[in-house]
């Protein structure tokens, strides 16, 4: 079908890049935002604007709260439909979990409750959760959407499209295409090393766009490759579920053998027993970690078989001092506090996997490296966006002459994706500040603002794309850049007005989560504003040039390519 290897790779890069690029830029952009997802949560939920805290006392603070926790009402309703006979008034908790990181001021608590009498699924259960201020044990209202960790982050790995895991599959396929685009890009780009630093902004748009596309792609090539690959391996069991299907007998046998070897009770005994002091277990765990040369705080606390004689408490170390995801869990017997098992160092294969996963998921504490990750992610976005622009620029003259509309639609979708995505992101932050604090289902309204703004931006992009048909620049780019600038400045102003935490104060107090986001918003606003002006100037110049003389200018530019 293709006469040379290079031609086949060019076709692959162009067409898969174009189609999946729209998904990839979303993944890269929200991935970049997710580096600071918990900081964005602080901006969005002003009650949580205090410094991160270590895991508080289980015995005095968490235990009573777990005792009072109840399953989510909508999960209960769904479960009632699944079971034979009525649901009991209270469901017994199966397990409890508490999770915190070095960036979280608040603590997340989780519980699973056993649902009896489901003929289809004997392990049926529902969930409960709570968010807690660990300084005083106060529960935070749960309908406050954590815009960073519960919206932008899921957007990154699943497009917030949970139906039948469709979002995971689309993102996964996009990641594969990313790998193929990188490889094919290297094949096409013959002078990779010689043109490593080449960027000629004063040349005509096609040349300078391609230069920037190559630059942002090559400069962070290891980053782009590793992130696409590790993203795929993290979710590999979704894409290649061999252990749940073909090799299920072997997998289950191995899991049961593992559990038996560890000596951890698989099922509850059915005999009640109280929980021993978890605080004492935490002290012991910290002592053991320090003895192994990795002192640390508890990151995740898990109580299994709650209230039963076979209950176990597992303490995981918060692995914030290195790249590898170090869990190093220690299992305690729940009723006595005795150490059942201190998990040994992982195998070589597991260590490699932990390192690669840790590389992607970044639980580590290193602010410079986090900002470098944002830089890499934004390079990826720039690479993809310049790819779109190059595609359109290269074809719009041919299409204008031939009267076909392909370039116009590609451009419209590009605007909808690139600037539209920014508009939507800023719209949810603005809505977060504007909506009344006591509005019911406030989080749902915020999400509606996000999607609604994106739909509007897409409609606007389509409406204003007609000039591309005549090989001119769509005015949607400049107009949406102006909207981005306006929204970004509005978000900063609204934060000041509604919370009083203006930049002077947050910088003086060194409260970086809010100061950092406000500063980033200002920078975005300034860049978008400058871009809008530059685009308007270019469009103005193009109109002044649009007479028969223009065709000679085009020919001269083409000769310079």
């Amino acid at each position: 079908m293709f006469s040379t290897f290079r031609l086949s790779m060019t076709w692959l890069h162009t067409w898969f890049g174009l189609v999946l690029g729209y998904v990839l830029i979303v993944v890269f952009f929200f991935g970049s935002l997710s580096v600071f997802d918990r900081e964005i949560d602080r901006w969005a939920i002003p009650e949580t604007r205090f410094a991160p805290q270590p895991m508080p006392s289980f015995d005095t603070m968490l235990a009573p709260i777990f005792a009072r926790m109840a399953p989510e009402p909508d999960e209960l309703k769904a479960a009632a439909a699944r079971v034979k006979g009525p649901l009991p008034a209270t469901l017994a908790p199966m397990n409890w979990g508490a999770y915190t990181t070095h960036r979280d001021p608040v603590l997340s608590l989780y519980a699973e409750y056993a649902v009896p009498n489901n003929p289809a699924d004997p392990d049926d259960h529902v969930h409960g959760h709570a968010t807690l201020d660990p300084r005083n044990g106060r529960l935070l209202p749960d309908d406050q959407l954590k815009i960073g960790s519960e919206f932008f982050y899921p957007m990154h790995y699943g497009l917030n499209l949970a139906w039948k895991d469709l979002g995971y599959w689309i993102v996964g396929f996009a990641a594969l295409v990313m790998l193929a685009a990188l490889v094919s890009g290297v094949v096409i780009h013959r002078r990779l090393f010689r043109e490593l630093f080449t960027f000629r902004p004063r040349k005509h748009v096609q040349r300078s766009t391609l230069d920037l596309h190559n630059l942002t792609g090559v400069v962070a090539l290891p980053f782009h490759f590793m992130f696409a690959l590790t993203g795929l391996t993290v979710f590999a069991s979704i894409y290649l579920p061999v252990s749940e299907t073909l090799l299920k007998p072997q997998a289950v046998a191995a899991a049961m053998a593992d559990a038996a070897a560890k000596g951890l009770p698989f099922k509850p005994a059915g005999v009640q027993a109280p929980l021993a002091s978890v605080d004492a277990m935490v002290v012991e765990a910290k002592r053991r970690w320090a003895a192994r040369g990795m002192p640390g705080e508890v990151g995740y606390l898990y109580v299994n078989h709650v209230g039963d004689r076979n209950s176990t408490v597992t303490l995981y170390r918060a692995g914030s001092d290195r790249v590898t995801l170090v869990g190093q869990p220690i299992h305690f017997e729940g009723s006595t506090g005795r150490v059942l098992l201190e998990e040994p160092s992982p195998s070589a294969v597991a260590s490699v996997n932990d390192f690669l996963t840790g590389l992607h998921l970044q639980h580590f504490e290193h602010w410079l490296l986090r900002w470098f990750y944002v830089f890499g992610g934004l390079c990826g976005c720039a690479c993809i966006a310049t790819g779109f622009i190059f595609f359109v620029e290269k074809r719009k003259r041919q299409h204008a002459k031939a009267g076909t509309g392909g370039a116009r639609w590609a451009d419209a979708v590009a605007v909808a994706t690139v600037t539209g995505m920014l508009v939507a992101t800023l719209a949810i932050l603005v809505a977060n500040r504007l909506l009344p604090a006591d509005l019911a289902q406030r989080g749902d309204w915020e999400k509606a603002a996000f999607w609604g703004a994106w739909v509007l931006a897409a409609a606007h992009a389509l409406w204003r794309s007609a000039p591309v048909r005549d090989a001119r620049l769509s005015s949607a780019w400049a107009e949406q850049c102006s909207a981005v600038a306006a929204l970004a400045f509005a978000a900063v102003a609204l934060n000041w007005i509604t919370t009083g935490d203006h930049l002077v104060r947050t910088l003086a107090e060194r409260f970086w989560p809010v100061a950092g986001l406000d500063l980033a918003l200002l920078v975005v606003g300034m860049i978008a504003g400058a871009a809008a002006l530059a685009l308007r100037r270019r469009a103005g110049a193009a109109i002044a040039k649009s007479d028969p003389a223009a065709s000679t200018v085009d020919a001269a530019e083409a000769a310079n390519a």
Partner: protein
Amino acid sequence: MPEALLLAAALLFSAGGIAWLALAMEVHWQQAHGSATGPGRRTATALRVLGGAALLASLVACLVADHATMAVLVWVMSLAASALLVALTLAWRPRWLAWLAPWARRA
């Protein structure tokens, strides 16, 4: 030495090292000096040695500042950021890079 200072030094060495390696390439030397001739074989070699040494120094600074795995990542990403910085400098203010080779005479 405090971590922030070490990392700042690592970034400086990384940027300088990449810039020297770029200057060793004929087209970029010409951009930086506004000259029609390249750096010549000896100068180019010297620049490459200087650049390599600076990148090595950057890696060492990273390793002193942090745990090994994070240090390597920081270094790799600093190379990427430096490469972009150097490319943008060459695009808009190429003459600034001439300061990194002060022994060369301007054309």
